[in-house]
């Protein structure tokens, strides 16, 4: 049994983004996401069941899974959301986000790919149904605050968070996906989410709190000079919406909730544009600029 893994009946229990999840089988990528004692709520499970004979009308969407641009099919009916990920399986997320079913068998030898798919769109969708939105962002903590960096894939957000880690009071909290949710009057980051580009023993989130107030979001851009500038409220909202992972899979109801959440979040969290040349030697100056801005 994996370190920290709890057994509840025949399920394996993990703790992700502040919520307990039960899975039928061991998920190697979650080896370092132990459940916490005293929590026994079934939130989601992964069960092998037969493919239903009638699937809802499926649409196509392209998105990133790790470093691969994949095309998934998705649809919704009264039983839930369906997501068909080529080579990985067909998943159904219940309408309340509490159960994730693997509907179509995958190659048993390909558990890793299957797990990566499960921990991608289906898990992100299940969290969204429960009002936790996954930003496509890296993240660091700084003196008790959480800072997120949003950018397109390959634009340097992971590099920046990795560089800041351990410097000037910064600590890396996320690499690629940052769940966020409303908390009190503000927005909190829930960084305990599997960062699939990193091996299980290098997950950055374990030395940071499970829930941290989100103080700032930087939208990364490329400019000849290092600059940090405010953005208009509407640009902030649009950027947070565009930076939400798996949003193409959202139902109209979920899209409405996402828009309302991000509109509120943009009022409560500083959203700014951070631009700098793509030059690794300038990252110390970028760090100084961020600190000046946060102070």
């Amino acid at each position, binding site marked *: 049994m994996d370190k920290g893994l709890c057994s509840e009946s025949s399920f394996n229990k993990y703790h992700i983004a502040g919520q307990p999840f039960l899975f039928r089988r061991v998920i190697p990528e979650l080896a370092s996401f132990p459940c916490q004692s005293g929590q026994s709520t079934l939130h989601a499970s992964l069960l092998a069941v037969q493919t239903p004979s009638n699937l809802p009308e499926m649409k196509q969407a392209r998105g990133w899974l790790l470093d691969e641009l994949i095309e998934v099919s998705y649809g919704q009916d009264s039983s839930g959301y369906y997501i068909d990920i080529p080579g990985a399986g067909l998943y159904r997320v219940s309408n309340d986000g509490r159960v994730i079913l693997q509907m179509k068998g995958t190659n048993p030898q390909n558990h890793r790919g299957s797990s990566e798919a499960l921990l991608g769109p289906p898990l992100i969708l299940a969290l969204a149904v429960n009002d936790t939105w996954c930003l496509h962002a890296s993240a660091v903590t700084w003196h008790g605050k959480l800072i997120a960096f949003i950018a397109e894939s390959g634009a340097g957000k992971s590099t920046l968070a990795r560089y800041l880690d351990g410097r000037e009071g910064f600590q890396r909290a996320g690499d690629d996906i940052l769940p966020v949710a409303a908390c009190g009057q503000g927005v909190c980051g829930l960084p305990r989410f599997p960062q699939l580009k990193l091996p299980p023993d290098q997950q950055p989130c374990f030395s940071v709190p499970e829930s941290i107030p989100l103080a700032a979001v930087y939208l990364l851009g490329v400019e000849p000079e290092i600059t940090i500038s405010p953005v*208009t*409220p*509407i640009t902030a*909202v*649009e950027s947070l*919406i565009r930076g939400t992972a798996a*949003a*193409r899979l*959202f139902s*109209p109801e979920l*899209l*409405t909730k996402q*828009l*309302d959440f991000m*509109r509120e979040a*943009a009022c409560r969290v500083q959203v700014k544009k951070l631009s700098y040349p793509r030059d690794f030697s300038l990252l110390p100056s970028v760090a100084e600029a961020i600190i000046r801005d946060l102070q």
Partner: protein
Amino acid sequence: MNQLKIPNHVIMRSVGEDALLLNLDSQQYYRLENVGAKMLQCLLDGLTTPQVIDQIRLEFDAAPEQIASDLQDLVHKLEDQGLIEYG
């Protein structure tokens, strides 16, 4: 003419002085900045074209003819995108 309204498959949210429209069917977002957001809100509130022009002139320094032209363009674009309807 019937009252202009937002169709069921579209939602509108104000953000500061601007507005975002979301077509839930296509998942497309549309940004309406400042004057455009104000014009649309006036129309949704049931103001006539002359009343909208008067309202805009209270806040923005522009000739009535220019406002009328911009308003017509805006309505056409919103209609083309299925973001407004009459009913």
